Protein backbone atom coordinates (compact mmCIF):
# COMPACT_ATOMS: atom_id res chain seq x y z
CA UNK A 1 0.00 0.00 0.00
CA UNK A 2 1.43 3.39 -0.97
CA UNK A 3 1.12 6.10 1.63
CA UNK A 4 -0.04 9.50 0.41
CA UNK A 5 -2.09 12.52 1.46
CA UNK A 6 -4.92 11.18 -0.67
CA UNK A 7 -4.77 7.89 1.22
CA UNK A 8 -4.88 9.65 4.61
CA UNK A 9 -8.00 11.61 3.54
CA UNK A 10 -9.66 8.52 2.12
CA UNK A 11 -9.02 6.51 5.28
CA UNK A 12 -10.19 9.39 7.45
CA UNK A 13 -13.50 9.38 5.59
CA UNK A 14 -13.91 5.59 5.75
CA UNK A 15 -13.19 4.99 9.42
CA UNK A 16 -9.53 4.03 9.02
CA UNK A 17 -10.52 0.47 8.15
CA UNK A 18 -8.15 0.10 5.20
CA UNK A 19 -4.76 0.34 6.93
CA UNK A 20 -2.76 -2.87 6.88
CA UNK A 21 0.26 -3.97 8.94
CA UNK A 22 3.37 -2.29 7.54
CA UNK A 23 5.25 -5.60 7.31
CA UNK A 24 4.45 -9.32 7.45
CA UNK A 25 5.36 -11.74 10.23
CA UNK A 26 6.68 -14.64 8.13
CA UNK A 27 7.78 -18.11 9.20
CA UNK A 28 11.49 -18.50 8.40
CA UNK A 29 12.22 -20.43 5.22
CA UNK A 30 14.79 -23.24 5.28
CA UNK A 31 17.17 -21.46 2.93
CA UNK A 32 17.88 -17.90 1.80
CA UNK A 33 20.46 -16.37 -0.48
CA UNK A 34 21.37 -13.76 2.10
CA UNK A 35 20.56 -13.61 5.80
CA UNK A 36 21.16 -10.33 7.61
CA UNK A 37 21.58 -10.76 11.37
CA UNK A 38 20.29 -7.75 13.26
CA UNK A 39 16.98 -5.96 12.69
CA UNK A 40 18.19 -2.50 13.58
CA UNK A 41 18.63 0.49 11.32
CA UNK A 42 21.70 -0.88 9.57
CA UNK A 43 20.36 -4.41 9.10
CA UNK A 44 16.99 -3.23 7.78
CA UNK A 45 18.66 -0.67 5.50
CA UNK A 46 20.92 -3.43 4.19
CA UNK A 47 17.89 -5.56 3.41
CA UNK A 48 16.10 -2.68 1.71
CA UNK A 49 19.02 -1.89 -0.58
CA UNK A 50 19.73 -5.59 -1.24
CA UNK A 51 16.18 -6.03 -2.50
CA UNK A 52 15.63 -2.68 -4.18
CA UNK A 53 19.04 -1.68 -5.55
CA UNK A 54 20.79 -5.01 -6.00
CA UNK A 55 17.87 -7.20 -7.07
CA UNK A 56 18.25 -9.86 -4.39
CA UNK A 57 14.99 -11.79 -4.08
CA UNK A 58 15.65 -14.24 -1.25
CA UNK A 59 16.72 -12.15 1.72
CA UNK A 60 15.85 -12.43 5.40
CA UNK A 61 16.54 -10.18 8.38
CA UNK A 62 16.62 -12.00 11.69
CA UNK A 63 16.32 -10.14 14.96
CA UNK A 64 16.53 -11.52 18.50
CA UNK A 65 13.96 -9.07 19.89
CA UNK A 66 11.79 -6.63 17.96
CA UNK A 67 13.03 -4.55 15.06
CA UNK A 68 14.35 -1.11 15.86
CA UNK A 69 14.72 -1.94 19.55
CA UNK A 70 18.47 -1.36 19.75
CA UNK A 71 20.52 1.72 19.03
CA UNK A 72 18.25 3.00 16.24
CA UNK A 73 15.69 3.47 19.00
CA UNK A 74 18.18 4.82 21.55
CA UNK A 75 20.13 7.62 19.83
CA UNK A 76 19.95 11.39 19.54
CA UNK A 77 18.76 11.38 15.89
CA UNK A 78 21.45 13.63 14.40
CA UNK A 79 22.57 13.41 10.78
CA UNK A 80 25.68 15.17 9.45
CA UNK A 81 28.72 14.59 7.27
CA UNK A 82 31.32 16.76 8.99
CA UNK A 83 34.29 14.40 8.97
CA UNK A 84 37.91 15.17 8.17
CA UNK A 85 39.60 12.06 6.84
CA UNK A 86 39.49 10.68 3.30
CA UNK A 87 38.42 7.24 4.50
CA UNK A 88 35.34 8.72 6.18
CA UNK A 89 34.09 11.91 4.56
CA UNK A 90 32.98 10.53 1.15
CA UNK A 91 31.09 7.77 2.95
CA UNK A 92 29.25 10.11 5.32
CA UNK A 93 28.48 12.57 2.53
CA UNK A 94 27.03 9.67 0.53
CA UNK A 95 24.95 8.89 3.60
CA UNK A 96 23.69 12.46 3.90
CA UNK A 97 22.68 12.43 0.22
CA UNK A 98 20.74 9.22 0.82
CA UNK A 99 19.03 10.87 3.82
CA UNK A 100 18.00 13.77 1.59
CA UNK A 101 16.05 11.41 -0.67
CA UNK A 102 15.12 8.82 1.96
CA UNK A 103 11.43 9.56 2.31
CA UNK A 104 10.82 9.46 -1.44
CA UNK A 105 12.81 6.23 -1.69
CA UNK A 106 10.89 4.56 1.15
CA UNK A 107 7.50 6.25 0.68
CA UNK A 108 7.61 6.85 4.42
CA UNK A 109 7.64 10.02 6.47
CA UNK A 110 10.88 9.83 8.43
CA UNK A 111 10.68 13.53 9.32
CA UNK A 112 14.10 14.29 7.84
CA UNK A 113 14.74 17.85 8.96
CA UNK A 114 17.83 19.65 7.66
CA UNK A 115 17.86 22.21 10.43
CA UNK A 116 21.65 22.47 10.49
CA UNK A 117 24.40 21.49 12.89
CA UNK A 118 26.86 23.85 14.55
CA UNK A 119 30.17 22.84 16.19
CA UNK A 120 31.30 25.58 18.57
CA UNK A 121 34.81 27.04 18.44
CA UNK A 122 36.52 28.43 21.55
CA UNK A 123 40.14 29.03 20.58
CA UNK A 124 42.40 29.89 17.64
CA UNK A 125 43.66 26.33 17.52
CA UNK A 126 40.14 24.99 17.33
CA UNK A 127 39.28 27.49 14.59
CA UNK A 128 42.25 26.25 12.54
CA UNK A 129 41.21 22.64 13.06
CA UNK A 130 37.58 23.29 12.16
CA UNK A 131 38.53 25.39 9.14
CA UNK A 132 40.65 22.51 7.92
CA UNK A 133 37.78 20.13 8.53
CA UNK A 134 35.38 22.43 6.69
CA UNK A 135 37.74 22.54 3.71
CA UNK A 136 37.97 18.74 3.71
CA UNK A 137 34.19 18.58 3.72
CA UNK A 138 33.88 21.01 0.80
CA UNK A 139 36.52 19.09 -1.17
CA UNK A 140 34.35 15.99 -0.78
CA UNK A 141 31.21 17.70 -2.01
CA UNK A 142 29.68 18.50 1.38
CA UNK A 143 28.74 21.96 2.64
CA UNK A 144 30.57 23.79 5.40
CA UNK A 145 30.43 27.32 6.74
CA UNK A 146 32.53 29.05 9.40
CA UNK A 147 30.27 31.32 11.46
CA UNK A 148 31.43 34.32 13.49
CA UNK A 149 30.43 34.94 17.10
CA UNK A 150 28.00 37.62 15.84
CA UNK A 151 26.33 35.12 13.47
CA UNK A 152 25.97 32.69 16.35
CA UNK A 153 24.53 35.31 18.72
CA UNK A 154 21.94 36.20 16.11
CA UNK A 155 20.90 32.57 15.57
CA UNK A 156 21.18 31.36 19.15
CA UNK A 157 20.73 34.37 21.48
CA UNK A 158 20.46 32.16 24.58
CA UNK A 159 23.98 30.75 24.28
CA UNK A 160 26.53 31.84 26.88
CA UNK A 161 29.11 33.30 24.49
CA UNK A 162 31.19 34.87 27.28
CA UNK A 163 31.95 31.81 29.39
CA UNK A 164 35.26 32.45 31.16
CA UNK A 165 36.72 29.06 30.33
CA UNK A 166 35.12 28.45 26.91
CA UNK A 167 34.10 31.76 25.29
CA UNK A 168 32.44 31.14 21.92
CA UNK A 169 34.74 32.41 19.17
CA UNK A 170 32.81 31.04 16.22
CA UNK A 171 31.54 27.79 14.85
CA UNK A 172 31.67 25.30 12.01
CA UNK A 173 28.19 24.94 10.57
CA UNK A 174 26.85 22.32 8.23
CA UNK A 175 23.48 23.64 7.13
CA UNK A 176 22.47 20.36 5.46
CA UNK A 177 22.88 18.46 8.73
CA UNK A 178 19.91 17.99 11.00
CA UNK A 179 17.73 15.39 12.66
CA UNK A 180 15.52 12.49 11.62
CA UNK A 181 12.71 10.71 13.44
CA UNK A 182 14.78 7.66 14.45
CA UNK A 183 12.07 5.02 14.88
CA UNK A 184 10.58 5.95 11.53
CA UNK A 185 13.92 5.10 9.93
CA UNK A 186 13.71 1.53 11.20
CA UNK A 187 10.01 1.23 10.36
CA UNK A 188 10.39 2.84 6.92
CA UNK A 189 13.26 0.56 5.94
CA UNK A 190 11.41 -2.47 7.33
CA UNK A 191 8.22 -1.65 5.44
CA UNK A 192 10.09 -1.05 2.20
CA UNK A 193 12.23 -4.19 2.55
CA UNK A 194 9.13 -6.25 3.31
CA UNK A 195 7.31 -4.85 0.29
CA UNK A 196 10.27 -5.95 -1.86
CA UNK A 197 9.96 -9.50 -0.55
CA UNK A 198 12.39 -9.52 2.37
CA UNK A 199 11.35 -11.77 5.28
CA UNK A 200 11.70 -9.90 8.58
CA UNK A 201 11.86 -12.53 11.31
CA UNK A 202 11.58 -11.18 14.84
CA UNK A 203 12.10 -12.96 18.18
CA UNK A 204 14.70 -15.16 16.54
CA UNK A 205 18.11 -15.11 18.21
CA UNK A 206 21.24 -16.44 16.54
CA UNK A 207 22.81 -19.11 18.75
CA UNK A 208 25.59 -20.16 16.39
CA UNK A 209 26.96 -20.21 12.85
CA UNK A 210 27.12 -23.43 10.85
CA UNK A 211 30.64 -23.33 9.44
CA UNK A 212 31.92 -26.29 7.39
CA UNK A 213 35.45 -26.30 5.92
CA UNK A 214 35.80 -22.58 6.40
CA UNK A 215 32.50 -21.80 4.68
CA UNK A 216 29.46 -20.38 6.48
CA UNK A 217 26.35 -22.36 5.54
CA UNK A 218 23.83 -20.55 7.67
CA UNK A 219 22.86 -19.69 11.21
CA UNK A 220 21.54 -21.72 14.13
CA UNK A 221 18.74 -19.81 15.80
CA UNK A 222 16.18 -20.17 18.55
CA UNK A 223 13.72 -20.94 15.73
CA UNK A 224 15.90 -23.61 14.13
CA UNK A 225 18.59 -23.68 11.47
CA UNK A 226 18.31 -21.12 8.68
CA UNK A 227 20.50 -21.84 5.67
CA UNK A 228 22.11 -19.02 3.72
CA UNK A 229 24.68 -18.61 0.98
CA UNK A 230 25.83 -15.44 2.68
CA UNK A 231 25.37 -14.18 6.23
CA UNK A 232 25.83 -10.49 7.05
CA UNK A 233 26.10 -9.42 10.68
CA UNK A 234 25.03 -5.92 11.74
CA UNK A 235 24.43 -6.06 15.49
CA UNK A 236 26.25 -2.96 16.78
CA UNK A 237 27.01 -3.24 20.50
CA UNK A 238 26.61 -7.02 20.49
CA UNK A 239 29.14 -7.53 17.67
CA UNK A 240 31.79 -9.11 19.89
CA UNK A 241 29.29 -11.55 21.39
CA UNK A 242 27.90 -12.59 18.03
CA UNK A 243 31.22 -12.95 16.25
CA UNK A 244 32.60 -14.93 19.21
CA UNK A 245 30.18 -17.65 18.04
CA UNK A 246 32.40 -17.86 14.94
CA UNK A 247 35.53 -17.82 17.15
CA UNK A 248 36.43 -14.29 16.09
CA UNK A 249 37.88 -11.61 18.35
CA UNK A 250 37.11 -8.09 17.19
CA UNK A 251 39.08 -4.85 17.47
CA UNK A 252 36.42 -3.29 19.64
CA UNK A 253 34.96 -2.80 23.09
CA UNK A 254 31.30 -2.27 24.00
CA UNK A 255 30.66 0.92 25.96
CA UNK A 256 27.55 2.59 27.31
CA UNK A 257 26.60 6.07 26.10
CA UNK A 258 23.82 7.94 27.87
CA UNK A 259 21.35 10.39 26.37
CA UNK A 260 18.67 12.61 27.84
CA UNK A 261 15.46 14.38 26.89
CA UNK A 262 13.74 17.21 28.70
CA UNK A 263 10.02 17.82 29.00
CA UNK A 264 8.40 19.25 25.89
CA UNK A 265 9.04 22.97 25.42
CA UNK A 266 7.99 25.55 22.86
CA UNK A 267 10.48 25.91 19.99
CA UNK A 268 13.69 27.42 21.35
CA UNK A 269 16.48 25.64 19.54
CA UNK A 270 16.34 25.69 15.73
CA UNK A 271 19.33 23.44 15.00
CA UNK A 272 21.81 21.06 16.54
CA UNK A 273 24.59 22.56 18.69
CA UNK A 274 27.67 20.67 19.77
CA UNK A 275 29.91 21.91 22.57
CA UNK A 276 32.71 19.41 22.15
CA UNK A 277 35.03 21.12 24.61
CA UNK A 278 32.44 20.64 27.34
CA UNK A 279 31.22 17.18 26.33
CA UNK A 280 27.69 18.32 25.51
CA UNK A 281 25.43 18.55 22.48
CA UNK A 282 21.77 19.34 22.09
CA UNK A 283 18.89 19.59 19.66
CA UNK A 284 15.14 20.01 20.03
CA UNK A 285 12.81 17.30 18.85
CA UNK A 286 9.63 18.02 16.91
CA UNK A 287 7.69 17.14 20.08
CA UNK A 288 9.58 19.92 21.86
CA UNK A 289 11.90 17.94 24.10
CA UNK A 290 15.49 19.08 24.27
CA UNK A 291 17.50 16.00 23.31
CA UNK A 292 21.04 16.06 24.63
CA UNK A 293 24.04 13.94 25.46
CA UNK A 294 27.76 13.91 26.01
CA UNK A 295 30.57 11.44 26.44
CA UNK A 296 30.69 7.72 27.07
CA UNK A 297 30.67 6.51 30.65
CA UNK A 298 34.06 5.08 29.76
CA UNK A 299 34.06 1.44 30.90
CA UNK A 300 33.02 -1.77 29.12
CA UNK A 301 29.29 -2.29 29.52
CA UNK A 302 26.36 -4.16 28.03
CA UNK A 303 23.92 -2.73 30.57
CA UNK A 304 22.00 -0.11 28.48
CA UNK A 305 22.15 2.16 31.50
CA UNK A 306 24.95 4.30 32.84
CA UNK A 307 26.12 5.88 36.05
CA UNK A 308 25.79 9.29 37.65
CA UNK A 309 29.28 10.76 37.03
CA UNK A 310 28.58 10.89 33.29
CA UNK A 311 25.18 12.49 33.97
CA UNK A 312 26.85 15.15 36.10
CA UNK A 313 29.50 15.78 33.42
CA UNK A 314 26.87 16.26 30.70
CA UNK A 315 24.76 18.56 32.87
CA UNK A 316 27.80 20.67 33.80
CA UNK A 317 28.51 21.11 30.09
CA UNK A 318 24.89 22.08 29.53
CA UNK A 319 24.87 24.68 32.27
CA UNK A 320 28.16 26.20 31.11
CA UNK A 321 27.03 26.96 27.57
CA UNK A 322 23.28 26.73 27.68
CA UNK A 323 22.21 28.06 31.11
CA UNK A 324 18.49 28.16 30.28
CA UNK A 325 18.48 24.36 30.21
CA UNK A 326 18.68 24.45 34.01
CA UNK A 327 15.03 25.55 34.04
CA UNK A 328 13.84 22.51 32.10
CA UNK A 329 12.95 19.29 33.84
CA UNK A 330 14.46 16.04 32.67
CA UNK A 331 11.87 13.69 31.24
CA UNK A 332 13.87 10.57 30.40
CA UNK A 333 17.41 9.28 30.18
CA UNK A 334 18.71 6.06 28.71
CA UNK A 335 21.86 4.26 27.67
CA UNK A 336 22.83 2.51 24.46
CA UNK A 337 25.65 0.06 23.87
CA UNK A 338 28.24 1.36 21.42
CA UNK A 339 30.53 -0.91 19.44
CA UNK A 340 33.62 1.25 20.02
CA UNK A 341 36.35 0.32 17.57
CA UNK A 342 40.06 0.79 18.09
CA UNK A 343 40.31 3.83 15.80
CA UNK A 344 36.80 5.23 16.11
CA UNK A 345 35.81 4.18 12.58
CA UNK A 346 33.61 1.32 11.40
CA UNK A 347 34.27 -1.96 9.64
CA UNK A 348 32.28 -3.15 6.60
CA UNK A 349 34.15 -6.18 5.33
CA UNK A 350 34.28 -9.89 4.61
CA UNK A 351 35.60 -12.08 7.40
CA UNK A 352 38.19 -14.85 6.98
CA UNK A 353 35.22 -17.27 6.82
CA UNK A 354 33.72 -17.56 3.32
CA UNK A 355 30.12 -16.41 3.26
CA UNK A 356 30.34 -14.51 6.56
CA UNK A 357 30.33 -10.71 6.38
CA UNK A 358 30.55 -8.09 9.07
CA UNK A 359 29.28 -4.54 9.59
CA UNK A 360 30.05 -2.87 12.91
CA UNK A 361 32.33 -0.68 14.97
CA UNK A 362 30.09 2.36 14.50
CA UNK A 363 31.02 3.84 17.85
CA UNK A 364 28.44 6.53 18.67
CA UNK A 365 28.11 7.59 15.03
CA UNK A 366 25.97 4.80 13.70
CA UNK A 367 22.66 6.58 13.26
CA UNK A 368 23.79 9.15 10.70
CA UNK A 369 25.53 6.37 8.79
CA UNK A 370 22.43 4.17 8.53
CA UNK A 371 21.61 4.65 4.82
CA UNK A 372 25.18 4.48 3.54
CA UNK A 373 26.01 1.62 5.88
CA UNK A 374 23.06 -0.34 4.52
CA UNK A 375 23.90 0.56 0.93
CA UNK A 376 27.59 -0.28 1.28
CA UNK A 377 26.91 -3.52 3.14
CA UNK A 378 24.33 -4.53 0.53
CA UNK A 379 26.89 -3.74 -2.18
CA UNK A 380 29.47 -5.93 -0.45
CA UNK A 381 27.01 -8.79 0.11
CA UNK A 382 25.62 -8.69 -3.42
CA UNK A 383 28.81 -8.08 -5.40
CA UNK A 384 31.56 -9.33 -3.07
CA UNK A 385 33.42 -6.07 -3.44
CA UNK A 386 33.29 -2.97 -1.26
CA UNK A 387 31.27 0.08 -2.19
CA UNK A 388 33.59 2.83 -3.52
CA UNK A 389 32.95 5.02 -0.47
CA UNK A 390 33.63 2.20 2.01
CA UNK A 391 36.90 0.72 0.76
CA UNK A 392 38.84 1.86 3.83
CA UNK A 393 36.58 0.09 6.35
CA UNK A 394 38.64 -3.10 6.36
CA UNK A 395 39.29 -5.59 9.14
CA UNK A 396 43.01 -5.67 8.44
CA UNK A 397 43.60 -1.92 8.70
CA UNK A 398 44.84 -2.24 12.30
CA UNK A 399 47.35 -4.90 11.35
CA UNK A 400 48.50 -2.92 8.30
CA UNK A 401 48.70 0.45 10.04
CA UNK A 402 45.91 2.05 7.97
CA UNK A 403 43.84 3.33 10.86
CA UNK A 404 41.14 5.97 10.28
CA UNK A 405 41.52 7.82 13.54
CA UNK A 406 39.53 11.09 13.33
CA UNK A 407 40.46 12.13 16.87
CA UNK A 408 44.02 10.83 16.88
CA UNK A 409 43.47 8.93 20.12
CA UNK A 410 45.08 5.61 19.25
CA UNK A 411 43.80 2.22 20.32
CA UNK A 412 41.80 3.36 23.34
CA UNK A 413 38.16 2.88 22.37
CA UNK A 414 36.67 4.93 25.22
CA UNK A 415 38.46 8.06 23.97
CA UNK A 416 37.06 8.05 20.42
Amino acid at each position, binding site marked *: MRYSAFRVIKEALTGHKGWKPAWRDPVPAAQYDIVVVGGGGHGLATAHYLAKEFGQARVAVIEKGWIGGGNVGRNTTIIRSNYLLDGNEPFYEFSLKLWENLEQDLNYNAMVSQRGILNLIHSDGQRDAFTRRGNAMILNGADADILSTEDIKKRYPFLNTDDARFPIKGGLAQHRGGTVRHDAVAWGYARSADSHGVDIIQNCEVTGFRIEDGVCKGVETTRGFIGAKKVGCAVAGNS*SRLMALANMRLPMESHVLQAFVSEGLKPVLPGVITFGAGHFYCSQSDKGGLVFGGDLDG*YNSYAQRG*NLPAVEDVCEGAMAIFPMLGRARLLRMWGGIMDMSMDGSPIIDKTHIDGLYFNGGWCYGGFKATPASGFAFAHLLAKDEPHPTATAYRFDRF*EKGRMIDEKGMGNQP*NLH
Partner: protein
Amino acid sequence: MIINHPLLGPRDSAEFTYMGDARLMDRPDPDAPDAAAAFYDYAYLRDNPAGWHRELWFHEAGDRSWLVVTRNTVTHEISAVELASDVARAQGRT
Protein backbone atom coordinates in the same frame (compact mmCIF):
# COMPACT_ATOMS: atom_id res chain seq x y z
CA MET B 1 29.91 2.42 40.87
CA ILE B 2 31.92 2.09 44.07
CA ILE B 3 35.34 0.45 43.85
CA ASN B 4 36.53 -1.05 47.10
CA HIS B 5 40.20 -0.07 46.96
CA PRO B 6 42.39 -2.62 48.79
CA LEU B 7 44.31 0.15 50.58
CA LEU B 8 41.85 3.06 50.75
CA GLY B 9 38.48 1.39 51.12
CA PRO B 10 35.36 2.22 49.09
CA ARG B 11 35.99 4.97 46.51
CA ASP B 12 33.78 6.53 43.81
CA SER B 13 34.67 5.12 40.38
CA ALA B 14 34.80 8.71 39.08
CA GLU B 15 38.18 9.04 40.84
CA PHE B 16 39.58 6.38 38.51
CA THR B 17 40.51 6.23 34.85
CA TYR B 18 39.43 3.09 33.05
CA MET B 19 42.32 1.48 31.20
CA GLY B 20 40.73 -1.59 29.62
CA ASP B 21 41.10 -5.36 29.74
CA ALA B 22 43.53 -6.58 32.44
CA ARG B 23 45.25 -8.73 29.82
CA LEU B 24 47.03 -5.53 28.80
CA MET B 25 49.36 -6.25 31.75
CA ASP B 26 50.74 -9.20 29.80
CA ARG B 27 52.80 -7.45 27.16
CA PRO B 28 54.16 -9.85 24.51
CA ASP B 29 57.87 -10.50 24.10
CA PRO B 30 59.13 -7.96 21.54
CA ASP B 31 62.03 -10.26 20.61
CA ALA B 32 59.87 -13.28 19.80
CA PRO B 33 59.75 -14.32 16.13
CA ASP B 34 55.99 -13.74 16.00
CA ALA B 35 56.20 -10.39 17.83
CA ALA B 36 54.34 -8.41 15.13
CA ALA B 37 51.34 -10.74 15.21
CA ALA B 38 51.42 -10.94 18.99
CA PHE B 39 51.49 -7.16 19.35
CA TYR B 40 48.62 -6.77 16.86
CA ASP B 41 46.61 -9.15 18.99
CA TYR B 42 47.69 -7.40 22.21
CA ALA B 43 47.07 -3.86 21.01
CA TYR B 44 43.86 -4.25 19.01
CA LEU B 45 41.86 -7.43 19.69
CA ARG B 46 39.62 -7.80 22.74
CA ASP B 47 37.37 -10.52 24.17
CA ASN B 48 34.83 -7.83 25.16
CA PRO B 49 32.63 -10.25 27.13
CA ALA B 50 29.09 -9.70 28.35
CA GLY B 51 29.52 -10.83 31.93
CA TRP B 52 32.55 -11.01 34.19
CA HIS B 53 35.49 -8.96 33.00
CA ARG B 54 38.90 -8.38 34.62
CA GLU B 55 39.92 -4.82 33.89
CA LEU B 56 42.42 -2.14 34.83
CA TRP B 57 41.40 0.97 36.73
CA PHE B 58 44.00 3.66 37.45
CA HIS B 59 43.37 5.69 40.62
CA GLU B 60 44.28 8.94 38.89
CA ALA B 61 42.58 11.27 41.37
CA GLY B 62 43.75 9.23 44.34
CA ASP B 63 46.85 7.30 45.26
CA ARG B 64 47.74 6.63 41.58
CA SER B 65 47.75 2.90 42.08
CA TRP B 66 46.64 0.53 39.33
CA LEU B 67 43.89 -1.92 40.25
CA VAL B 68 42.61 -5.11 38.67
CA VAL B 69 38.83 -4.98 39.11
CA THR B 70 36.62 -7.98 38.37
CA ARG B 71 33.33 -6.47 37.25
CA ASN B 72 30.23 -7.74 35.52
CA THR B 73 29.64 -5.76 32.31
CA VAL B 74 25.93 -6.62 32.32
CA THR B 75 25.08 -5.63 35.90
CA HIS B 76 28.08 -3.39 36.82
CA GLU B 77 28.52 -5.55 39.96
CA ILE B 78 32.11 -5.70 41.25
CA SER B 79 33.22 -8.99 42.78
CA ALA B 80 36.94 -8.46 43.41
CA VAL B 81 39.46 -5.64 43.54
CA GLU B 82 43.21 -6.30 43.64
CA LEU B 83 46.29 -4.16 43.36
CA ALA B 84 47.73 -4.70 39.90
CA SER B 85 51.18 -4.91 41.48
CA ASP B 86 50.01 -7.85 43.62
CA VAL B 87 48.56 -9.56 40.55
CA ALA B 88 51.84 -9.10 38.68
CA ARG B 89 53.90 -10.43 41.61
CA ALA B 90 51.62 -13.47 41.89
CA GLN B 91 52.48 -14.16 38.23
CA GLY B 92 56.16 -14.16 39.19
CA ARG B 93 56.99 -10.69 37.91
CA THR B 94 59.19 -8.37 39.93
